[in-house]
Each structure stands twice: as C-alpha cells, then as structure tokens.
C-alpha cells in the first residue's frame, strides 16, 4: 500500500534539523522506551511476524501516520496487533486506561517509570508467569540469535547482474516493500542477495520466498533530467521487477 509511510521523493517536509550526535539520547522519554520494549516483547510471543508488524504501523490514515511521532506509530501498531490477535480486547484497554488515568489523578502527577517496579512486583507475586512468555534470558537469547530472512528455493534467479529491469507499477492493497517512487522506472541489476522471505506474502502469514536484487537507478530515471546526478540502490524482490523482454509490452 502507498500509505503515509511511503516517503521517498515526497516534498514539503522541510529541513532535517538533526540533534547533535553527542547530545542525542537513545530514547527521549520513558514511555518511548516502554513502547519499544513492549513491541519487541509481544513480538516474541510469535503471533505475528516482522512484516505484519510493519504493516500494522502502515495501516493508519496517512494524516495520523505523519502527524504522530515514531514511537506513537509503534504504539498504534502494537495495540492493533494485540487486538486483532485476540490477546487483548478494546474493553480491557479502556479499563486499563481508566485505571491508569485515576492512578495519575490520585497522586496529582503524571505516572513515571518509578511506578513500574511496584506494579510489576504485585503482578509477579499475584500471578504465576504463563508458560511460553519470554523471560529476560529468553529475550536476550532471541535478540542475539536474530532471525535470518534468507531461504533456499528451487528456482534459479531470473535476472543476472547488469540486466536492465523495470520496477513494475503496482497498487497493492496490502503490505509491500516496493517503494512508490521507483515504480515504473528503469534500473540495472547490481547484485543478487539470494532468496529472501517475500514481505507481500509474509504479511499475510505466507512465508513464501523470492530472489532479492539490489537494483541501481540513475537519479534522472527517477526524477527527470534536472535531478542532481546520483544513483539509488533499492532492494527489490523478483515479483516487483519486469525484464527487458517485457519492456515493450503493457504487461509491466
């Protein structure tokens, strides 16, 4: 889908305005680090994959996606996945929100990180941990282990290094990693990375794999002859690409 997230070449967002590297913290507030951790920890439950997680963040009104901060979009995506998988309900969220609001009201201060250990201790003492819920050591092992996206597939790569290819135009309703700005543009195969899990299918729970190529696009192919001269290399899966023999047809 070409949602608010598909930003390459969009205009009007203004200057970048980076914080000085030496002064920038990893997280800018406590809620950001909690949302980051909640997203990773719930991901470890194995109920959705990385493409479903990305798609959940993208499936928002573009105005919301663009207005919200980065971790607000993570929070929106994680909440959506938890609701859709049935792990939590809207009523439970409303109840938890009301409880969090009243706790905040009671002490007259915004809730802070200092609340967490206390709540955690109560919960820990009150409820045994469910089997299959990762503990700290499991989490460290999972993070350090990673999860390769490469797969062995029977077919051979359709394109060779140096081939001219065209990024197909597509208006898929679901998740895709074919950025809008390259679609319809001609490029050259720079490298083949082997077969990788195909996000368009994986986001629907189908772990299909296709060959993944690094495709080089001249800036003038992307943006016209007035563009600054440079090259953009984009990782594109085989189904996103049409070959030279298709260039003359309308089948791209």
């Amino acid at each position, binding site marked *: 889908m070409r949602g608010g997230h598909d930003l390459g*070449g969009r205009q009007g967002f203004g200057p970048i305005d980076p914080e000085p590297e030496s002064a920038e913290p990893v997280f800018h507030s406590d809620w950001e680090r909690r949302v980051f*951790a909640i997203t990773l920890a719930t991901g470890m439950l194995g109920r959705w994959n990385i493409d479903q997680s990305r798609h959940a963040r993208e499936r928002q009104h573009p105005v919301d996606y663009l207005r919200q901060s980065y971790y607000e979009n993570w929070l929106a995506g994680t909440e959506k996945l938890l609701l859709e998988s049935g792990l939590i309900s809207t009523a439970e969220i409303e109840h938890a929100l009301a409880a969090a609001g009243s706790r905040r009201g009671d002490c007259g201060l915004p809730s802070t990180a200092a609340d967490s250990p206390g709540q955690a201790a109560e919960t820990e003492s009150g409820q045994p941990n469910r089997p299959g819920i990762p503990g700290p050591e499991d989490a460290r092992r999972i993070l350090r282990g990673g999860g390769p996206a490469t797969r062995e597939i029977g077919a051979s790569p359709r394109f060779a290094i140096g081939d001219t290819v065209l990024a197909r135009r597509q208006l898929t309703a679901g998740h895709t990693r074919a950025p809008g700005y390259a679609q319809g543009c001609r490029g050259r195969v720079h490298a083949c990375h082997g077969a990788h899990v195909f996000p368009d299918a994986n986001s629907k729970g189908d772990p299909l794999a296709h060959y993944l190529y690094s495709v080089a696009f001249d800036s003038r192919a992307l943006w016209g002859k007035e563009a600054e001269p440079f090259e953009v290399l984009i990782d594109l899966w085989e189904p996103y690409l049409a070959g030279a023999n298709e260039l003359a047809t309308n089948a791209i």
Partner: protein
Amino acid sequence: MTGDHSHLPSATELRAKALESLLVDKGLVRPETLDAIIETYQNQVGPRNGARLVALAWADAEFRARLLGDAAKAAAEMGYLGRQGEHLKAVENTREVHNLVVCTLCSCYPWTVLGLPPVWYKSAPYRSRAVSEPRSVLAEFGTELPLETRIRVWDSTSEMRYLVVPMRPPGTEGWSVERLSRLVTRNSMIGVEPALAPGSEVL
C-alpha cells in the same frame, strides 16, 4: 512523522502505561523482560560496535577485505550479531564514491553495529529527501563533497542492512585501533558526515 519528541501529549504516555499494565496483568509480558530489552539497546548495543569494525578495517587490510566481503560474518567475529544485523553489507566511501543509507519506508537500520536509529533518520524530511536530493541533505549536515564524487544512496527496503565505512582521515598513520575508533561517529557510518579529523575525537 514529526521529529519533535520533547513535548508529547500525556495521552500517549497514559496509553503506553495502560497497555503495559494490561499486558503485565494478563501475564503476556514480564516487566523484567521489558527491562532486559531496554538495557540491551540503551547500554549494550550501539554505534561503538560499528566504530570498532571500521577502525579495524582501516588498520588491518585482511579484516577490511572480510568486512567488505561478508559484513555479518566479520561483525560476528567481534561478537556483534543478532536482530537487525543478520544480513549486513559494508559499503566503503572513497574519493570516487560516497555512500549514504536511508530507509524510505520505515526505519531499517543495522542495530547490531549502530544500535537504534536517531530521530532524524526516522523522520519524514530525511526519508523523503535522501533519495531525491542527497547533496542538499548532506549539506544540512555540513558535508560538502567534491562534484566529481559519485553519490550512491542505499534505500534499505529489505532485511539487508547497510553500514558505511567512511574514509580514514589523514594524519592517523600508525594509530591504534582503539584510538582510530574514536574518530568514527555514528553519522559517518550512515554516510551523512565524514569521520572526525584528528584532534576532535569522541571521548
């Protein structure tokens, strides 16, 4: 995607808090697991990892060849492995070619060697402009490249992750790997800035 993280509405804080409480109460996440995840990315995994790889590549031609050949494997030699670093490619800046990394669709970034991305990397201005006007983007970081230097922008649309190996600054001959690594900033490994000049090291 606003870049402003300093004045967030308390409604978001409340929502995050409520979700965490709910998940903990239901036994779906353990608070100590959340703490372990935060600790990993706040204090353990960060751009000093990448800086050591780059410094070693500058100092040791054989390691440089291994890093440019298979960066994930070379990083694993140093113990840098895991989530968001499974498929890593190192791209080397030279007088002829300057590499710049972006993720226009989200925020893909080589966590194992650089940690979590800075706010500007995830922001709409950078994600929109890095692929359409990279020289203007570089100028905003104070980076001016010679006109003859070709710019290569890597858009991280897949699970491939890209690490820029900046040019070794002149005047650093004979330096130790440790000392060299203090010239390698996070921004130089994204490709928006050169490595630091001797005398302005990261402490």
